[in-house]
């Protein structure tokens, strides 16, 4: 004769721990989200002493920029920012020596960083070696 068990056994997770589990999961995902690795672009800029020496030897390409995002100056000529890459590539094609591929970047003091990044990216993609020439600030004392 078979004896039937009275009722079924309840198998429930302990409800007191669910709060802890939820909290730990939140913390875990927060930490995962905050440790996103930085991304960016490496840039090699020679030291200022080296720049001076090289400037004296050869006539370098000059790119000047201002707060105007649509245009830059290439060797004194105003060109559209979108055309800078192709124009530079054409010029640099005729310059195989690395010392001739130096591009002097001049920026007006109000040039925004995102514009500077766009322009220098174009120069590097065209095969140019960036060097910075800052605007000189002179203090004149009036007696």
């Amino acid at each position, binding site marked *: 004769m078979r004896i039937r068990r009275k009722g079924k056994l309840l198998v429930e997770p302990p409800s007191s*721990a669910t709060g*802890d589990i939820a909290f*730990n999961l939140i*913390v*875990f995902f927060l*930490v995962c989200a*905050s*440790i996103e*690795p*930085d*991304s*960016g*672009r*490496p*840039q*090699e*800029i*020679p*030291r*200022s002493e080296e720049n001076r020496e090289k400037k004296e030897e050869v006539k370098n390409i000059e790119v000047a920029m201002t707060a105007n995002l649509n245009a830059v100056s290439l060797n004194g000529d105003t060109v559209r920012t979108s055309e800078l890459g192709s124009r530079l590539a054409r010029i640099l094609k005729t310059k195989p020596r690395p010392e001739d591929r130096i591009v002097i970047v001049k*920026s*007006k*003091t*109000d*040039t*925004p*960083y*995102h514009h*500077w*990044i*766009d322009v220098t*990216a174009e120069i590097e*993609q065209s095969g140019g070696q960036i060097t*910075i020439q*800052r605007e000189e600030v002179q203090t004149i004392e009036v007696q």
Partner: protein
Amino acid sequence: MKISRRPLAANVPSMAMGDIAFNLLIFFVILAKATDDSHLQWDPAETIDVTRAGAAKVSVVIDADSKYYLNGQQVGIAQLAPQIEQILGSTTGDDRRVLLKVHRDATANHFEPIIEAVSEAGGTIMHVLEEKRLKK
């Protein structure tokens, strides 16, 4: 007449051990983050081609108010080059990498001295940027 107390058992609840270990693990992971400049307000500029910046000993931030921070501490522009040189010491290769986190609208009179200071200190510049998503 003295009534002797029953000795009380003082066991550490073993159920919580997993939770404690997990919380400690997360705590040390957060501490291990190299430099904490997450409290600074700056928006990165965008570019098409980006690579992983990796870890660096030195991180320079120009925030939305054009203030300079070296490894999370506010500094003046004049102190920047010698301090970077001091931190980099005689390291070589990738250890000379300097992360440059510049607010996208910062102007040349603020960020160019930093680039010059890093190059003078012999550091390798890594501009921290965001990948530009092209519109379809």
